[in-house]
């Protein structure tokens, strides 16, 4: 029942033998060893698994690997520059303490990059709404929201408490 799936992951062509029921998240984690993409739920609600497929944020736990055949997939491992320079959104998460345990972080950052693409200039309320599909149990979202604002709308950053 297995078939070969070929797709581009983080700029490189990759293929794997998978069952039709294999999810994109499983393909990435179990077959390609890209364990940065996390799985935090089975109801498509937590967003720990968000990656970009053809430039758009999707939940890789709710897409079949076979559906990603021929597509461009970017995961958290592919966001920084090859020389290791962090993506500005990754930098912003660090600067604004947008992560604690780090489990939601890959999906959060991938969604944040997508938000920045679609909603430049977004205010705090919009950013919070845009995070509807990404749960974080550690940060209370404040650092995450501030990090995203610092990229999309720096004037809206409040960060009153630390230099």
């Amino acid at each position, binding site marked *: 029942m297995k078939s070969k799936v070929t797709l581009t992951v983080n700029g490189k062509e990759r293929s794997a033998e998978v069952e039709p029921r294999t999810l994109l998240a499983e393909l990435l984690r179990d077959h390609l060893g890209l364990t940065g993409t996390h799985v935090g739920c089975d109801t498509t609600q937590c967003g720990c698994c968000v990656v970009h497929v053809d430039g758009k944020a999707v939940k890789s736990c709710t897409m079949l690997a076979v559906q990603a055949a021929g597509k461009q997939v970017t995961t958290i491992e592919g966001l920084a520059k090859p020389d290791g320079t962090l993506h500005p959104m990754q930098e912003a998460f660090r600067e604004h303490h947008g992560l604690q345990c780090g489990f939601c972080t890959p999906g959060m950052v991938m969604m944040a990059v997508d938000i920045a693409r679609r909603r430049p200039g977004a205010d705090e309320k919009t950013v919070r709404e845009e995070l509807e599909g990404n749960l974080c149990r550690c940060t209370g*979202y404040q650092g995450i929201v501030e990090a995203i604002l610092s990229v999309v709308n720096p004037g809206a950053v409040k960060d009153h408490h*630390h230099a």
Partner: protein
Amino acid sequence: MGQFGIGQPLRRLEDPRLLVGGGRYADDARIEGQFWGVFLRSPHAHADILAMDLAAARAAPGVKAIFTAADLDAAGMPDMACEVELKSLAGEAMARPQRPILARGKTRFVGECVALVVADTQAHARDAAELIAVDYAPRPAVAGAQAALRPDAPRVWDELTSNLPVHWENGPVGPVDAAMAGAAHRVRLRIVNDRLVPAPMEPKGALAAWDKAASKLTLWAPTQGGRRIQATIAKRFLGLEQEQVRVISQDVGGGFGMRGQTYPEYVALGFAARALDGAVKWRADRTETFVSDYHGRDQVNEAEMGLDAQGRIVALKIHTVLNLGAYMAENGPRLPMEGGGRIIPCCYHAPHFYFSVKPVFTNTVSTDTYRGAGRPEANFLMERLMDKAAAACGLPRDEIRRRNFIAQFPYKTPLGYSIDSGDFAAGLDQALRMADWAQFETRRAEAKRRGKLRGIGVAAFIEAAGGRAPVEDMRLQAAPDGSVTIFSGSHSHGQGHATVFAQLAHEFLGVAPERVTLVQGDTDVTPKGSIGTFGSRSSMMGGGGLKAAAEKIVAKGKRIAAALMQSEAEQVSFAQGVFRAGASEVSFAAVAAAAHDPAKLPEGMAPGLDESHLFQREAENFPNGCHVCEVEIDPETGTTEILRYVAVDDCGIVLNPLIVHGQVHGGVAQGVGQATIEKVVYDEEAQLVSASFMDYGMPRASGVPYIEAGFNAVPCKTNPLGVKGAGEAGACGAPPAYVGAVADALRDFGADHIDMPLTPEKVWRAIHGKG
């Protein structure tokens, strides 16, 4: 000192790795040739298991083995025990029935493990689990603690005469009743503190691998520092020496108190790995975590407070009924007294205090520690009582608190704990100022003109941190190049130890934080006397151990430096990474290099710069704070919006404000979650109704406010760093501040308390008198 030392908002050192997908969580571990385990779980809340037919499952594709209680019993495996000891006033000891790893003849809650299926793939194991035919004879079940106390309630344990294993009281009620009778004002309150799931974002999972040659089990699992789990699995369950089990938890996706326990799944997986001489992996999906992770809270509190004519507390009575679940978890029954009781009556002095606790068995998942573990419940109760008392005494809510605050330290609490320090009034003033409390009525009036109901709530709270095991072990090792490795038993599952401990190493040794590496979560290499992280203990316990170990490094370093500078150790000083004697100086790195070069060492000195310290705490510390919450309610729908949230916290000396604020934010979000949407719901048959995020409301970014955080730092007097824990404050402050604000908004509608979560419907009902 130090640019990056104590008090600096150093950006986290662990972040670059976590931000590029470099985290190593339990499910990232895999071993060539591993098997997959799947647990078959009970669909019944209470049932006898009459028979189990494994034949079809055993014959299913890919199946390697199926384990049931019979296999464990045949191997002489003991059951899980709760070590908590409690006695009634009359001296009867608490009954402590034990939990089988896999259900033996009977299941007592929905989700209890009945069998472990091991196969070559997870899908095959799942397919096979569906083929196991279990013949259940369902029995009546009970989910609520109060229902379980009724004489005719179904009994969870046939062995016991009721569902009440002990009735604990702090003393006779008589004197308290007498004081109560003389009070000028009396207020009563009944509060349901609902059941929650901790729900860290990383679901539980584990990989257990048996190494036959070494006779050793390695368990990758998300723990809060695996030392206790290592000991329990090795000694109690597998009959091994402690060192024959290795627990690895490198990165852990959130803890919140539910990761410290030895879950039955870990034991079963370890057993299976040894029996199969291989590796068995298990990955719970989220739905499974709802019945596998221990739940939190679930108390019903009935309280009465008596006050004198000036609004000073004269007596306090609390009756707590705690839902234990079907099985006593490791800490379960102790939470109201040793968790919450440590601090009751919270920030206030109550000359007469009676406390009764009834832990009760029900057909539900066990309850155990969850962020604050008894303290959020206690603070919530006290703050709701204070609001009610303010109304009864005709005093403003801030004033009644001021009149009752503990102001003399050290203060001995009714249950005998000693609070070393605090300035509750200053914290209150600061919070009220930041929230512009004084001008609130103007804002209320303005909202009213828009048809909205506005309210403000204030909550003072106190925490107890660093409790239970009074020791923690830390090891510091300097490499020849002067870089430092910290071997820590304290464990970060988000708290940023790699950063904070590096700051401390920088502070004490002058090493640049980037040159400090933290090793955690591997019982093979972390110090033996370590315990782990829970109850916000790391800053005091780990930090204390680190400071003492650093002092030992400096002491040895001085002797080496003296040899290098041809001086005497007594003449050598050390500051900012440099050893000095007279006009000469050598760097820490040079001393570290010399330490590894026997030729440069003083006579008889062992090479290396590697010191450990088993830190012994003097006392716990008592973080405290005051939170203010302002809300606006749409009376048509009951929708409540948080407009402002101010958090003032006394966490003692702040090691890294960025990280402490992060802890406060996260705690507030969990507290707001409890106050607004979170609730575990069981139906009449004790079926779990809220078994996924579709039904269990998790706080999202849009439901959590922007938090204005401030510090009211009063250094702790009983530990060398002056620190107090920070992890649980938010979860203590937010529920009473929020509920107080809603109650204030609804003051004209006669609703002085609504039980959490305050869903729009409940608020709407309160406004429209629909009960």
